[in-house]
C-alpha cells in the first residue's frame, strides 16, 4: 500500500495518482466510502458509475473543491494535501468540467491566461501565452486560433480551450467530466485523438463518463463506482459493456430494448414546411416537413443545438412559428405569441421536455403538485369552482408514482429530492398517464441511471404499442437507434435525411449529423 512509500522512491515507478481510503459524507449521505484507486502514469483511466455513485465527489476531492473526511492522496508517489484548486493546479492536476467555464466575449488567449497572469500588466503574459499556445496547439492537434472570440467558436472548440487552459498550467494529470455530452461523433473522435496524443506524451488522463462505448474505445483501465464505493477496477481489454453495466447497477441490465415490429396506423402528426425564428431573429428551424403515424416512433437525431429544441417547443405550444402543423388532420394555430400549451394538451399532445429540471418540473414543488403541472385546469383535479382537490391529486399521484416505479413513491417529497432518473419518471408518469395521441419526448434519458433507462425505454415502447404516435429527440445515437422505427437527422435547422434503423449505422448517421447532405434518403 501507499503508506510505506517514501520521497526517495523513483517517481516514474509510482502511479500518477493514488487515493487511499477516501471517505466523504454530506450530512447523512455517505458520498464516498473508503475509496482506493490507483492510476498509472501515462494511462487513460475511465471512471463510470450511475448518478450519485460518487464519481463527481471523488474528482472534486482530487481537485480541491471538497476536503475528504478521511484518506490520503498521493501524486507521483508523494503524499499531497489538496485544500483548494490552486493546490491541485500546483500538483499538476487539470480539470475539464462538463459545463465549460469560459468568458464568452474574451478571446481564446485571454481565456487561457485568465487567472494565470504573470503580473499586473497583461501584455507580457499574453505574448508569452501566445507562443506557448501555438506550441501546444500544434503538438496535440488542438487547432484553436488564439485570437478567436470564444462565443464565435463551436462547443468542440470550447472544450479544447478548456484542455489548453489545463495544459498551459502545466497539468500532467487531466480529468475530463462527461466530455462528449455535447459533441458530434466526429468531434468526439477528434477529442479522443487529442487524448491519445496527450497519453503518448506521458500525460495521465481520467475520463468520467456514463457512455460504455467510450470507455471501451479509449480507456486502458476502468473503475466502476457504485453507491459511494469503488466496486472494481479492471483492464478495459478484459471486460465488456454488459459486464460493466452489471457492475454499475448491481444486476443484469438489458442494454438494447427488445421491441416487436411497429404497426403504423394513420398519420397523427403532420408538419409542413415549419420555420422558426428565435427571439434574437436567428432562424432555428428552416423549413421542416415530417409525419409521425400512430403506433410508431420517429427518432430525431442530431447534435444539440441544431433546431430540435425549437421544433419541440413549437409542437409543445410555446414558441411561435410559420408553416403548418396538423394533429389528427386538424390544423393547429401557430401564430400565438403567448404560450398555447393548454390548448395543445387539450388536443392530445403530451410533452416530456428536454430539460426536466428547468421545464418539466418545479423543483421546489412536491411530487403531487408536479403531477398535475400543465393539467391543473383539468376538472378532475378541482374540488369546486374555486379550490383544487389536493387530497385527490395526492392519491392519484401516489398511484401513478407506484405504476412508474418512482422511488421513493412519496407524493409529499419535493421534486428536487428525487434522483435524476426518478424525476424523469415523474414527468413520464404525468404525461403518459394522460393517454395522449402524440407524445413528444426530448432527451428522455439524459442524466438518468442505466437501470432507469431500461424502464423508461420500455414505457415509451409500450405507449407505441398501444397505437400512439411518438416523436423522440435525442442526442444519444444509441438511444435513437434502439428505440426509433424511423430516424430523421437534423442539422442546422433542416432534416438532412431519413433512415431505417435496421439499415444504417453510426457512421452513416454521424455524417448526416455533421451536415453532409445526401438528399435521396429524405422523405
Amino acid at each position, binding site marked *: 500500500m501507499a503508506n510505506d512509500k517514501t520521497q526517495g522512491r523513483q517517481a516514474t515507478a509510482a502511479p500518477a495518482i493514488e487515493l487511499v481510503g477516501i471517505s466523504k*459524507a454530506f*450530512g*447523512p*449521505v455517505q458520498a464516498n466510502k473508503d475509496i482506493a484507486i490507483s492510476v498509472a502514469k501515462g494511462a487513460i483511466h475511465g471512471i463510470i458509475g450511475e448518478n450519485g455513485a460518487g464519481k463527481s465527489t471523488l474528482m472534486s476531492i482530487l481537485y480541491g473543491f471538497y476536503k475528504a473526511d478521511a484518506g490520503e492522496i498521493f501524486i507521483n508517489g508523494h503524499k499531497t494535501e489538496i485544500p483548494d484548486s490552486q493546490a491541485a493546479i500546483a500538483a499538476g492536476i487539470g480539470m475539464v468540467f462538463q459545463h465549460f467555464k469560459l468568458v464568452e466575449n474574451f478571446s481564446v488567449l485571454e481565456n487561457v491566461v485568465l487567472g494565470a497572469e504573470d503580473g499586473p500588466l497583461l501584455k507580457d503574459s499574453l505574448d508569452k501565452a501566445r507562443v506557448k499556445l501555438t506550441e501546444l496547439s500544434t503538438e496535440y492537434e488542438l487547432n484553436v486560433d488564439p485570437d478567436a472570440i470564444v462565443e464565435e467558436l463551436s462547443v468542440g472548440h470550447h472544450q479544447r480551450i478548456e484542455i489548453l487552459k489545463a495544459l498551459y498550467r502545466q497539468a500532467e494529470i487531466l480529468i475530463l467530466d462527461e466530455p462528449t455530452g455535447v459533441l458530434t461523433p466526429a468531434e468526439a473522435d477528434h477529442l479522443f485523438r487529442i487524448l491519445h496524443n496527450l497519453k503518448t506524451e506521458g500525460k495521465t488522463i481520467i475520463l468520467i463518463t456514463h457512455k460504455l462505448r467510450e470507455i471501451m474505445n479509449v480507456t486502458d483501465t476502468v473503475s466502476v463506482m457504485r453507491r459511494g464505493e469503488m466496486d472494481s477496477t479492471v483492464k478495459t481489454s478484459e471486460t465488456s459493456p454488459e459486464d460493466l453495466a452489471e457492475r454499475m447497477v448491481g444486476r443484469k441490465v438489458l442494454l438494447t430494448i427488445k421491441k416487436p415490429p411497429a404497426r403504423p396506423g394513420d398519420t397523427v402528426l403532420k408538419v409542413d414546411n415549419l420555420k422558426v425564428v428565435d427571439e434574437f431573429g436567428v432562424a432555428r428551424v428552416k423549413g421542416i416537413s415530417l409525419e409521425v403515424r400512430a403506433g410508431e416512433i420517429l427518432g430525431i437525431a442530431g447534435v444539440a443545438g441544431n433546431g430540435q429544441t425549437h421544433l419541440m417547443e413549437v409542437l*409543445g*405550444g*410555446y414558441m411561435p412559428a410559420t408553416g403548418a402543423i396538423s394533429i389528427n388532420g386538424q390544423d393547429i394555430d401557430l401564430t400565438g405569441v*403567448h*404560450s*398555447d*400549451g*393548454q*390548448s*395543445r*394538451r387539450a388536443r392530445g399532445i403530451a*410533452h416530456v*421536455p428536454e*430539460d426536466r429540471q*428547468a*421545464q*418539466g*418540473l*418545479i*423543483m*421546489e*414543488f412536491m411530487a403531487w*403538485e408536479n403531477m398535475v*403541472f*400543465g393539467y*391543473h*385546469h383539468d376538472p378532475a383535479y*378541482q374540488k369546486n369552482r*374555486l*379550490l*383544487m382537490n*389536493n387530497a385527490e391529486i395526492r392519491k392519484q399521484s401516489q398511484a401513478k408514482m407506484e405504476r412508474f416505479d418512482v422511488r421513493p413513491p412519496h407524493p409529499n417529497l419535493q421534486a428536487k*429530492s428525487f434522483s435524476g432518473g426518478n424525476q424523469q419518471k415523474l414527468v413520464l408518469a404525468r404525461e403518459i398517464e394522460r393517454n395522449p395521441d402524440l407524445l413528444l419526448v426530448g432527451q428522455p434519458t439524459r442524466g438518468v441511471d442505466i437501470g432507469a433507462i431500461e424502464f423508461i425505454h420500455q414505457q415509451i415502447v409500450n405507449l407505441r404499442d398501444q397505437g400512439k404516435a411518438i416523436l423522440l429527440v435525442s442526442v444519444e445515437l444509441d438511444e435513437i437507434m434502439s428505440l426509433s422505427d424511423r430516424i430523421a437527422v437534423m442539422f442546422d435547422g433542416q432534416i438532412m435525411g431519413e433512415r431505417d434503423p435496421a439499415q444504417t449505422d453510426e457512421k452513416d448517421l454521424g455524417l448526416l449529423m455533421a451536415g453532409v447532405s445526401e438528399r435521396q434518403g429524405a422523405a
Partner: protein
Amino acid sequence: MEKMPRWADVVLVPLISIALAFIAAGLVVLAIGENPFDMVFFMVRGALGSSSGIGFTLYYTTNFIFTGLAFSVAMHARLFNIGGEGQATMGGLGAALVLLAVPWPHWALALPFAIMGAALLGAAWAAIPAYLQAKRGSHIVITTIMFNFIGAAFMIYLLNGILKKPGQQSAETVTFPKGAHLPTFHEMLAPLGIEFSKSTPANISFFVALIAAFLVWLLIWRTRLGYQIRSFGQSETASTYAGISAVKVTIISMLISGGLAGMLAINVVMGEAERLILNFTEGAGFMGIAVGLMGRNHPVGIVLAAFLFGTLNQGGFELLWEMPGISREMVLVIQALIIVFTGALVNFTRYPLERIFLAMQKRAN
C-alpha cells in the same frame, strides 16, 4: 434528507435571530451609556404591558399584516413589489372617496364598500407597473418605487386642492360621516365586561386583516390561481412549458398585492383618522417588505412577524418617553438592527443551526 426539522426552521431560527438582534442592540445601547436591560424592559412593557400599549401594538400589527400580505402575494410570483407605500396611499383615497360620497348609516354597511374602494384604487396603482412589467419588461422594482413618489405627490395635490376641508389651512378632508365610525377594541370589549383602553386606535380592522391572511393562504395554497402564481414564481421557463401565461399571472398577482396594500387604509384612514390626511401610511408599506421576508411569505408567519414589528414600533415610541437618553434616531437604530438580524441576516443563524442538526443526526445514526 432534510437538513433540519421544520419546526427548527420556522420557530428556532426566528427566535435565535431576535435574541441576537437584542444582544446587538443591547451593545449599542451600552455604548451610549444606557442600561440595555432597561431598554428591553421599557420596550416590552410599553408595547404589551397595558391595554393601551397592546391597543397601539395591535393597530400597527394590522397595518403590517396588510402590507406584509401584499408584499408576499407578489413575491410568490417572484415580483418584488416595493410600491406598497404608494398603493396604500391610493387605497386611502379610495376609502375616503367612498366614505365621503354617501352619508353612511352604519359601519357594517360602510365597511365592505370602503374595503372595495381601498382595494380597487390600491390595485389600480399597482396595475400600471404590472402592465409595464408584463408587456414591456420594465422592472417592477423601478416602476413601483417611482409610483410611490407619484402617489405621494398626487395626494398632496388633492389634499391641498379639491379634497381639502373648506375654510382651514391643514391638508386634510372633512371628517367622515358618524355612521362610518369603526368599532374600536374598547367598544367591542366593553359589552363583554372587559375594560380596554379608550385612547387606542386598535379597531375591528384587525380582524379584517386576519381574515385577509386566511384568504391569502387559501388563494396561494388551495386555488388554481395560487398554483399558477407559485409555479410562475418558482420557474418561469417551466410555467411557459405548462401553458401558464406570464402576462396574466404578473398582472393578477400585482392587482391582488396592490389591493391588499390599499386595505391598510381601512385601519388607518377609516378606523383611526376618520378623515384622509397626508402621509398616513407612516412607512408601513416599506415595513411590509421586512414583514413578508421574515414571515417567509406565509400568512401565519406574516401575522407573527407583523405582531413583532408592531411591538417594536410601539415599544420604540415608549422607549423615547421612558429613557430620555435614547433619541428617536437611536430607536430607529435598534429597530433596524432587529430587521437586519431577522430579515437580511437570517442565514447567519440558519447555517450554523443546520450544521448542529446535521451533527446531531449523524451521532444518532
